[in-house]
Structure formats: C-alpha cells, structure tokens
C-alpha cells in the first residue's frame, strides 16, 4: 500500500512538473513585430501636381486665355528702368529686400549641360543660365557669388517656387507662354529655342511624322510634352521627372526619341555623340526668366540688366562661351508698359 501511495504521489508530481514545464520559457514576438513595422516605413513621397496629358483640356483653356490682354504678344515684357548702382538698391524695392538678405536666391537645373549643370569634379554649378544669374547678382551686389542656387527637380517647381516666394527668380529653360503668364511674370526673351526631336544615329525617323506609335520622352509639365501629344502622327508620350532622365531612357532603349528644346538636345548630343537632331522645329520656345507677378519692379530691373548685356555684347559673349559657333542670334527684346 505504501508503494502505491508513493506512486500516487509521483502522479501528482507529474502534474506539477508538467505545469511547471508549460509555464517556464515562453516566447513573445514583440521585437519581431516592432522591427518589421519599422522596416515597413513607407518611402515618403512629396505630393506633386501631375501634369495633364489630356490635349483637349489644354485646348479649352487656351481658347479662354487667348482673350487675355497678356496673350496679345507673350514675348513682350515690362519696359526696363534705369539700373541703380550695385549695392544701393532703391528704398522699398524688391531688389532692396534681396540686398538686405545678402544673397539672391535663384532656381536652376543641375542636369542640363551648357545651361545649368553641376560639374562633377568641382561640385559647382555652371552654364549659360548660371552665368546670366551671376550677372544679375553682380547688378544687385556687385558680387557674382552673392547668390544661392536652389536646384529644381520638377518642371512644375519652376513656377510654384517663384509664386510662393521660395526663390527670387528662375532661369531654367522656361518657355514663355500665355498660360504661364496668368500665374507669373517673365523677363524679356534671353534665348530663342526650338522644340526638336533627338533620335539615335541609327534611327530611320526623319521627323516627328515618322514617330507614330513610338515612345517619345519629354519632361513632365513642359510645353514639349504637351506639343508631342498634339502631333497628328500620335507618338506615345513618355514623361520623366528630370530632363536628363530622357537621355538615360534613350540610351537604355526604353524610348525611341526625345523631344525638347534644341538647346537642351545639343547638350544631350555632347554627352552622347551617337544621336542626331531630326525634323524641323515643332514650336518656337522663347526662354524668359521667371519672376513673381507681385514684383514688377524686379521684372523691370532684370530686363534692364538683360538690355545692358544685349547692348555691351556680353550676352553674345555668353552665347559663344557656352554654345560655340552654333550659337543662334541673340533675340531682340520686346517691351510693353
């Protein structure tokens, strides 16, 4: 009987041991969950307005806008006033505010060879537009380096940043047109570009008419992209965020052609000799510097600087410095009051 009592005790011990075994050593997946949650942090995106690809929408808007007095002659800008001495901007003017800040803030691109690009070796921005802006800084401060460049990554930023005042001026191959004139002011034309087509040297296409059903790259939010969607041969538009992304897409065979301004396309040709410009101009693309509508004094000041550069030949010299012998004529300034 004693042994059996012992056995019963052992039975009870089994139950106790089992309870202990089940209780000790539990696991939890809190760390796992937290780690995975943290790793799943989504890539942050900045909301940007998507360019309208519907050609009809643009058309309707344009019909309305052509009635605007600004659209009678889009290239006509405010007549310049006499330039004040550098460092002594008139009291109460926008230039005075810039002067007090200590530097000009200018929106530029850093990927467009010849116009505005970053030299990978020096880490400095340079190009035709950069030099233009330095001239502007010289006119305000007497110092070409009193300038902070803000790199613009999307085409829409070129207008938005001027409107919201985060930059004073933008020189980034912005075409003057009626629609944009509703939102911002432009300087006189500092460069007359033409929208052209760039294809690989081996391509048979001789113009936009041969590109039906082909993918044609252009920067999103530009006039070039709008134009290509309106072509009767119906090329397939391929929008990219930054201009030079088109050259990557062409070199990797993702697109069949690039459409942009001849100025930009020449820069592409320098970077890739196995390309050629084809066809005639699709549309003239007059470039102006973008300035907020609320600063007409600054527009007149910028136009004054441009007029002086036209007169003393320094604009022509800049053309030669960056574009060489293929440089076009310096466009004539047109003014309104």
């Amino acid at each position, binding site marked *: *009987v004693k042994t059996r009592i012992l056995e019963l005790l052992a039975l009870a*011990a*089994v139950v106790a041991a*089992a309870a202990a075994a089940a209780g000790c050593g539990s696991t939890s997946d809190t760390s796992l969950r937290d*780690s995975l949650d943290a790793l799943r*942090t989504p890539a942050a995106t900045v909301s940007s307005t998507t360019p309208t690809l519907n050609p009809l929408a643009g058309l309707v808007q344009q019909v309305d806008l052509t009635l605007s007095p600004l659209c009678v002659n889009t290239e006509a800008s405010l007549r310049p006033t006499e330039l004040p001495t550098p460092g002594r901007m008139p009291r109460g003017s926008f230039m005075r505010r810039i002067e007090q800040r200590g530097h000009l803030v200018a929106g530029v691109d*850093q*990927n467009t060879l010849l116009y505005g690009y970053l030299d990978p070796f020096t880490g400095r921005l340079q190009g035709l537009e950069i030099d233009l802006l330095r001239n502007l800084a010289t006119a305000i401060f007497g110092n070409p380096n009193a300038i902070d460049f*803000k790199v613009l990554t999307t085409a829409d930023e070129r207008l938005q940043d001027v409107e919201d005042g985060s930059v004073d001026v933008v020189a980034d191959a912005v075409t003057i047109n009626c629609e944009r004139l509703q939102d911002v002011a432009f300087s006189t034309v500092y460069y007359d570009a033409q929208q052209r087509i760039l294809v690989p040297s081996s391509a048979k296409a001789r113009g936009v008419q041969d590109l039906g059903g082909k993918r044609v790259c252009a920067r999103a939010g530009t006039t070039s992209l709008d134009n290509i969607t309106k072509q009767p041969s119906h090329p397939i538009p391929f929008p990219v965020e930054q201009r030079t992304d088109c050259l990557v897409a062409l070199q990797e065979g993702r697109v069949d052609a690039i459409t942009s301004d001849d100025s930009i396309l020449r820069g592409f040709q320098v970077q890739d000799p196995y390309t050629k410009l084809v066809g005639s101009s699709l549309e003239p693309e007059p470039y102006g510097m973008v300035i907020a509508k609320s600063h007409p004094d600054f527009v007149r000041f910028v136009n004054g600087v441009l007029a002086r550069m036209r007169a003393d030949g320094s604009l022509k010299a800049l053309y030669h410095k960056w574009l060489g012998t293929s440089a076009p004529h310096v466009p004539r300034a047109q003014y309104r009051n």
Partner: protein
Amino acid sequence: VPRRCERLEHADSSTEARQEYATRQAELLRALVCGTPLPGGFDASRARAVGEALVRKRARAVARALPGLAASLGDSHSSKFADYARGEPPHDNDALGDAIAFGSFLDRLRTLDARARRELLLARMEYATDTRARRRRTPLVGAMLDRARGRVLVAVYAPALGVIEVTLPFRSPFRRQAEGVKTYLEGGWPSRGTSETIRRVTSSGSEAIGASATRESLPTAWLRDRAATTPGRLRLLAALLVLVVLAFGVVASIAVRDRQQAAHSAAAETEPLLVQADVLSRSLSDADATATTTFLTGGIESPARRQRYLHDLRTASAEVTALAEEVHGSTSANAAVATIATKLPVYSGEIETARANNRQGLPVGAAYLRSASGLMRGTIVPAAARLYEVEARRLATDYGSGVSASAVVAVAAMALVALGLLILSQFYIARLSNRVLNIALLAASILLIGLTAWALTGFALEQSRLSTAQRTGSDSVEVLSATRILLLRAQSDDSLALAARGGGDQYTADFAAVMHALGPPDGSHGLLADASSLAARTHADASFDDFTRTLRGYEAVHRRIGVLEDNGKFPKAVSLAVGRTEKEAPLADRLNGDLKRQISAAQSRFENAATDATSALHGLLPGIALLTVGSALLVLIGLGFRIREYR
C-alpha cells in the same frame, strides 16, 4: 489401403508366435477401423458390427468436439462420418484432432456452411496454439471467407491474449447491385412511379446492409465473452495496459521530435537564413548609400568608398546566390530572390554608366545615378526586406512550436492515463490475488514515472533555453539589424537630398519618417525603445549608451547640415557631410560599426542558447523507445504470472 493404415503394425516381434499374433491383431484392427479384408478365423458379420460400433463411438466424440459441425450436418452426420472413417484411422486418442480432420475433409469438398466453417477455423487455431504441451509463443493468423453473408472472418492468435476474432465486411458493389435488383423484382411492379420505387428499393438494400452490420458487430460480443472469466479479464487488462503504454511512447516520441525539429530548425536553418537576409539588406542599402555619397563628394572618387561599394555588391550577390539555394517553399521569398537577382546587375550597370559619365563631367551621370538609386530603393531593397520578413516569421514559427504547450500537455496527459491505469490495475490484482506487490507492474510504473520526469525536464530545459535564445539573442539581432537598415536608409536619404541641392524634398521627408520609426535616442518610443530594453535585458547598456551618444551627435550634425541646406549653402553642407570638413559620414560609419559589433554579440548569444536548447532533448527519443517497450514487457510479465495461475 490408405497410407496411415499400413503403419498399424505391432512393433515388437521377438518371437515367431508373438509376431504371428501381432500380425493378425494388426490385420484385425485394420479390418475393423479401415475396412480392409478380414483376416481368416473371424466372424465377418460380428467383426463388421464391432467395426461399425467403433466408428459410431468416434462419430459421437467428434460431434461433441465440434457441435456446430454436427448440428449443421444433422442426421447425415453419422453416415458422412462413417464414409470418411472408412479411409481414416482415428487420431491418437484425440477427439478434437479427429474432428478437425473430418471437418477439413468436408471443407475440401465444400460441403460446409459458414457456421461450421467458423467453428472449424477457431478450433484449428485453438488446436494449433493450445492443445500441445506448451502454449504457442508466436502469433498466428487464420481467415475464412463467408461468401453468402459477404464477410471475412479473421482469427488472430496473440501470445498472452489468446485468439481474437475479427469480422470484416466483404461486399463487392456488384453483389449489392444484384441484391437490389433482386429485391426490386421480388417487390413487384412499381405502383407510384419508377424512380420512387427504385429509391425505395435502394434504401431497403441499404437497410439490409445496416442490419447485417449490427448483427455482425462482434467486438462487443467478443468483449462480453472475454470479460466473463477472470483470466479473460486479466488478458483484456494486459492488452489495454500495453496499448496505453505504447501509445504514451508514441505520443512522447512525436512531441519530442516536434520540439527537436523546431529547436534545430531555429538554430541551424531559419536564424542563419535570417542573418543572411539581414546581411543582404544591409549590403544593398550600404552599396546605395556609398554610391550616392561618392557622387556627392565629386572629383575623383575615393578608393576607400569604391572598395566599400564593391565589397557591398560582392556580399549582396553572394548572399542572394546562397539564399536562392536555401529558400524553399515560400513563393514570396522566391519572388523576392528572383527580383534581387535580376535587378542587381541592372543596378550595378547603371552605377558604372553613371561613373563613366561623371568621369567625363557629363550631367547624365547624375541622371544614371538617380535611376540606379530609384531602382535600389524602390525595388531591390523592398524585395530584400520582404525576404527578411519571411525568414523572421519562419523563425517566430519555429519558436512557437519549440515552446508550444501542446507537447507538454499531451505527454503529461498520456503519462497520467498510463500511470493511473497501472496503479488501478495493481489495486485490482492485489484484491484478486491477495498479493500486495506485483514487482513487474511496480517496475513498469517506476519506468514510466522516470521517463515522464525525463521528458518533462527535457522540455522545460529546451523551452527555457530556446526562450533565452530568443530573448537575449535573436530579438536583439532583429531589432538591431532593423535599426541598421533604417540608419543606412537615412544616410542614403541624406546624401540624395544633398545631391538634389534643395530639390530633394521627398528624401528629407523620408529621412524624417525613418528617424520617426527609429524614435529618439533616449529610447522613449520607436524601435530604439525596443533596442534600449533589449540592451538592459542583455546587460549591453554600455555599448547601447555609446551608440545613442553617437546617434545624438549624428543627428546634431544632420541638423546643422539641414540649416546650411535651407540657407542654400550647399557646398558648405556637402563639405560638412562628406567633404573636407566631414563630420556626418564618420559618425554614420561609427554607428554602423557599433551596430555591427552589437549584432554579432547578440548572434553569438543566440547560437549558444540555441545549441543548448537542441542538446536538452538529446537521447530522449531512444530513451522513450527503450523505456516504453520495457514497461510494456513488464506489464505482460506481471499480468502473465496472474493469468497462468488460472490454467
């Protein structure tokens, strides 16, 4: 003359007369039992009468031995036996043997019904196993087919249990159909539509089958028969005990095997895969961060950065190749490996194009770098993160099954049942035999208790070590490697934002999101809170404090760079980040180094504990087999003694 009759001769022939006498006696005997011609000197009619009387006596004995056979033959039994006996001498004083021989003779002629044949089969089993001087020690199986009732009767003899009879239904679909048709024909023409009648007929057919099934449920009857006698009850008890003990062994083996597999899988398969996936993610992120930083510094790239990038890329390709071979089963893991394997060459191609263009001072190089970085951050790194997640979840599953309470509960429950039964039977036997101690049964109980204790201790050890492996090892590995991947992402964000020179708002926002996920360095929330509590748990506070101090410094420098960026002072910002006056990059490198050291420390903690966990169950499987079989044998021995007392 039948062969057996020739042997009926007297062996002793020492003298002429004796031999003569013996010969005549043998001849007479042969004539009487086998119907050979009568030797001279005997009255033929009397001799025939004696012979017939002898055969009738044999027939009566045979009828007593196999009553079912006799009943099924009825009146023809004696005449049939007489026909048979004319050619067959009696078995040596053995009515059962004689009856089996007669039954077999009739069975060969296919004249027996099922009842008689069942009796014959059971008698044969009994005869083969029990009538000899010793009981048979090996199992024996006999079977018969009862065509008429569509069933198979299987008789199994097992030592210590006796003969067990099992009836299995044996019914071909053809036969059932034929029966249905037969019922239909007998039922006459349908009165209310054909389909209904057929349904009725079919259902009546299935009713018939059901009825026969209840009639054939013999196990209850068999049990009743067995339980009627004490040795029968003891045999049943022995069978039950053996069954329960063996079942305990099976359950315990399964539980131990499951635990062993889980612990082994965690230690040797999933965790190493997790580490590989982490190395992959980390080297991909680092390659991208290095490539962007290299571009940012401008000029001729530094050989150290180039080496780091190449090393990262080499590591990533090696890991992705290794993982491709080791990732099985999971489609999402396979898809992730395929994505990385196909996109990584595209990435490195674009990076090289970017370098070539940068060397010529062409801005398209920057565009290639952006494209490559977009591919890495948008496609390749997320795929690596998915892979990491799959492996991390597999490890969690391994932990779950490695510490699941179901194993302990199952083993304990089975042990309770087996021990309870053993103890109850000892009480029962003690009452039955008035013997206090059944040594064999007691030994069996002790074996079982010992085995249970061993198994439960093993489980508890394995469980606590596995939990240690997780709590101090892999938890830290997971949190720290997630931290490292996020920090690398932040670094790459930082470089890309600087490279965009004020245009990289999305990178700045991503940097902020990543830092938010990490939480502040004081560890009040976010992933760093986990890291901080893990550091406290693993007594790694000192190195974690070092890390947070560096992180504070890093964030301070980042803020300074942010201010410079906001004011448009990009050259100064770049210089502070990675250039001549660099402050940020060395801090980032130190953060990476710190994390690397902490991760490898956590990894070795994991490995030690996980190895201990697997060794906790060493030897348990063979132990279970040995001890359960041992106690089953002891049960048989212990009850065998008692059973034999009734023979």
